[in-house]
């Protein structure tokens, strides 16, 4: 091996050879790994409960699961975007609460104009999101602290607006009834809303330059900045998006419960949303994750919770089971990756 030839460098051949070899594996890795595990877990959960109870795997119950996860799902979808940026929005539940109250109050005070109710809710959602973004980017407050603070503040605002009471009654209105109980092509309006928002956000993330820039910001914000991305603008916009989607979730809450709820139904949603995003494969340090994984995680958690209730498991055991299954699902997933067990996993 000491002779020297004037042959061309061997590089190109190596590159394309390796390329051909790696392709199927690459597809499996990039598209699959995380999601395959989740699909596997979903099949196990659905299979188990279907076997335990006839009522589980029925169209009616699947609709129930869909409706149940719609609100959490919306928040999880948008939380995914925030997490991909490397940030966190803990205030989504409170934002949904404000939006719920505002939609019902605006509806009532305009003598039953549903469109105005929704517009008002979305307006408030944008405002709340922009405040979050500005406090974080220009106030230099860590996202976790900032949104913990607005979690409390927005909840207080919702309670003050509503005087602590459920506001209005919207189920006299056709539109809200449609949202609460309507169906399109056999699927409920709530599930359609989730799907439409999820698909829109998915397209945004995967197929537009905006989405690519969001991944870049989360992956390495210095590099993103130096590559010419206006990261401040992006961050504020992402929080505003979170506000808008939280507002949509709030409107659904209003329709589901029939009145504007300042806190009831929206408290604790932030943890559910973050759990789903993380289980769906988002790295909390940013730059990684996708809507597909998050949705699967949302449905997995929803199918599990529903199943435990269908077979009538006591709520204390449900806590244990949910915690344990969450751990088991992730452990199996990670074992398959064969990652070395050193230090903190990402």
């Amino acid at each position, binding site marked *: 091996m000491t002779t020297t030839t004037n042959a061309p460098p061997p590089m190109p051949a190596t590159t394309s050879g390796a390329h051909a070899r790696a392709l199927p594996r690459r597809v499996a890795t990039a598209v699959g790994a995380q999601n395959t595990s989740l699909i596997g877990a979903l099949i196990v959960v659905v299979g188990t409960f279907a076997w335990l109870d006839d009522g589980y795997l029925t169209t009616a119950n699947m609709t129930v699961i869909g409706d149940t996860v719609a609100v959490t799902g919306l928040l999880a979808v948008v939380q995914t975007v925030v997490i991909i940026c490397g940030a966190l929005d803990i205030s989504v539940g409170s934002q949904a609460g404000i939006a719920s109250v505002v939609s019902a109050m605006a509806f009532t005070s305009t003598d039953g104009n549903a469109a105005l109710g929704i517009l008002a809710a979305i307006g408030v959602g944008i405002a709340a999101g922009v405040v979050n973004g500005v406090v974080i980017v220009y106030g230099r407050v860590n996202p976790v602290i900032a949104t913990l603070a607005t979690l409390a503040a927005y909840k207080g605002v919702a309670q003050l607006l509503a005087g602590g*009471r459920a506001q209005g009654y919207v189920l006299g209105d056709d539109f809200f009834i449609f949202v609460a109980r309507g169906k399109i092509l056999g699927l409920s309006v709530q599930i359609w809303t989730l799907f439409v928002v999820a698909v829109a956000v998915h397209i945004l993330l995967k197929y537009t330059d905006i989405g690519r820039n969001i991944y870049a910001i989360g992956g390495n914000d210095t590099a993103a900045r130096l590559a010419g991305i206006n990261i401040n603008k992006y961050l504020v916009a992402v929080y505003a998006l979170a506000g808008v989607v939280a507002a949509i979730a709030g409107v659904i809450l209003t329709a589901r*419960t029939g009145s504007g709820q300042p806190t009831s139904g929206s408290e604790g949603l932030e943890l559910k949303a973050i759990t789903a995003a993380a289980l769906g494969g988002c790295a909390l340090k940013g730059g990684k994750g996708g809507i597909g994984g998050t949705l699967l995680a949302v449905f997995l958690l929803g199918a599990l919770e529903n199943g435990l209730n269908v077979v009538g498991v006591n709520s204390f055991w449900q806590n244990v089971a949910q915690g344990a299954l969450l751990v088991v699902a992730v452990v199996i997933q990670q074992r398959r990756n064969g990652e070395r067990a050193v230090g903190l996993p990402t």
Partner: protein
Amino acid sequence: SSGKDENKSGSPSGPPASLSGTIKIAYLQKQGDQQYFVDEADGARAKAKELGVDLKVVNLGNDTNKAVSEVQAAMAQKYNGVVIVVPDPAVGPQVVDIATGGGAPLLASDDQICVGGADPTKCAKDKLVPRVGFSGPQMGTQVGQRAAEEFKKAGWTPADTAIIAAWKQDVTVCTDRVEAAHQAFKQATGADVKVLKVGTDNTPPDAQNKTAATMSGNRSVKHWIVWGCNDENVSGAVTALHNGGYGSNDVIGVGLGAYLACKDWGSGKPSGMKAALFINGHEVGGLAVQTMVDRLRNGKPFPAEAFATTKMVDPSNWQQSGLKCT
């Protein structure tokens, strides 16, 4: 100090003393963001203003630890009297000891507490702290009786009927209510109807989700009876049943609070929400403050128990009951 020597002086209902000057009262409430307790706080404030006393209302959430802290704070800040709705009756004895140590009379509101033991149901009568409000078991009983009436009226059979009892299962007073309702129902009907226990977080969406799942597991049931810890649970569960295809004639929901039930009735559409026990929080708050002020200002001893009016309401009569629907 060992902490022991501080709780020697009088019992909470000890010798009445009368005060002059501004009276400061602390009203400590569990779940202060729930509608019933919001009403109660409003009633208390209105009464305090009328009587010219200083009133501080504190929301304890579900936090027994905070209950202890806030009683301590009230003592440190030299409040003259404490009214408390404990998040859990087990914290009662500690609250009693602290209030006694601070020399302030203590009045229980809504939920019973016991002087020397964690469980008020096993408490000797003379050890119970004087109380204003409603009796949990009693409320449950009224709900169960009304449900029994409606059940008989509907002519359903136990075989194709099931009861949904929805409540937050780690809240003791909730458990007491639904159990009392079941007792009363059994007694009144003599029928053995299956009870499905649905654990919720006491909010409408959660009750709706959990009930919907329970319903999926019991599709053979034709008729449903629903009760729960509060209106949120019953309203959420009834909504789920309607969404699942059960008409208003197949559901008997008996609410507790009536503040959400009234919204259904106000719309004029038929609803499975057949009745609800109206408990007037506003009145309880006012009564508690009045009782405390009577004691502090005039030396009038606490009555062992004082009850505000409760009224079973339904679509036909709720508007006359004084119930305000927001």
